[in-house]
């Protein structure tokens, strides 16, 4: 496995629970993964194996899914914990990310 999620990811998940106003707390396991407890689901977040194109693996009640980014991790966690959540996936715009010269 790749390196464990660092503390900034732990804080992001903890703050996300607060922002979404859903119950739960985030802890680190002895093997370095992050788990979300105190909620209706068993959720575990690991770094994906380095040979995969994904960066994260999110396991919800035993079912493991890859996530390509932290944004995708948040989407999966929110979908699992917040029954009122419907992913509102927006694209900012088909605009240049940097100015054209």
């Amino acid at each position: 496995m790749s390196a464990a999620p660092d503390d900034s990811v732990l804080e992001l998940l903890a703050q996300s629970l607060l922002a979404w106003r859903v119950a739960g707390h985030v802890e680190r396991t002895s093997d370095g993964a992050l788990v979300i407890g105190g909620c209706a689901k068993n959720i575990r977040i690991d770094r994906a194996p380095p040979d995969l194109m994904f960066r994260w693996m999110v396991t919800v009640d035993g079912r493991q899914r890859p996530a390509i980014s932290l944004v995708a991790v948040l989407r999966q966690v929110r979908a699992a914990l917040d029954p009122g959540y419907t992913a509102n996936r927006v694209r900012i715009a088909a605009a240049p990310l940097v100015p054209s010269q």
Partner: protein
Amino acid sequence: MNTDVIPVSVLTGFLGSGKTTMLRHLLGQTEFARTAVIINEFGEIGLDHDLLAASQDSIIELQTGCLCCKVRTDLAETLADLLRRRDEGRCMPFERIVIETSGLADPAPILQTLMTDIAVAGRLVLGGVVTTVDAVNAAATLAREGISQKQVAVADRIVLTKLDLSDDLTDSARPALLRRLETFNAGAPVLIADHGRIDPRLVFDAGLYDPATKSADVTAWLAEESHGHAHGHTNGHAHARHDAEIKAYALLRQEPIRAVALMLFLEALAEHCGDDILRLKGIVNILESPDRPAVIHGVQHVFHPPSFLDRWPSDDRRSRIVLITRRVPQRWVEVLLEAIDAEVADVAVGG
């Protein structure tokens, strides 16, 4: 920044807060001589149109209901028609447009329309939001009416009216009202209109686009002075009482942000808390564009495509993002940006 754009200012404020009185005064000023006005009233019979003594061919009244409810079609079509008439010489060559909303209008959809439908045309730019607040009734109105709170929260300028009627607004009550306004919007300067009279330059040149210089005035737009740096925080500043649902705060960041990280950050904000992002605006130091900062702004789920200034407006090259939110924790926004930028950096080096 396009130098040929026409700024569109939004004049909002709760019922009876003095919008039309102030607009009537402003339209009599030389600085406002070339102004087109769009008025929206809630109800079948509009009166504001008759109260404005200005060139009739440049005043359009929308009587189709509350502007915020039908904004995407009616407002966009009205603005397009106004531009067409201007281009064809069928009305005066106005240099700005003011939209006076109904007192019950949610300003967010109006701002969104200005940032999307109209931005595509490239002719108009949001010139700032001005909110009138009736000093006599403000405390009760703000306590009772969520729309009133939202109107104050999104303002670039807040104008207190009817102070002449508020004899009981004593020396102690006035600071209390100002504090109350600050809980919803600490960034907007609070101005005073005397029987509708106010310096036009103070009121409507509040947007990103400065009509006087025909360029972006980021510092004024972000109200940086109000979001001063005297509190000793490193990342940002909260400017509202903790018991208020609506809070304004600013993220400050020394390190440049990768362009992809900024996009992902804005998308995540909109995805998870879009309804509660009343307004976001900022100037961002993009790693890939160190000399040309990005200007961003959005309302709820809608974000204007970032635009790039030709140069930094001052020596301060920190990213500054101002958010006015309802129940969105500042710390979450901060760690979201930090984590996404760190991940994008990690990917960039092959992590």
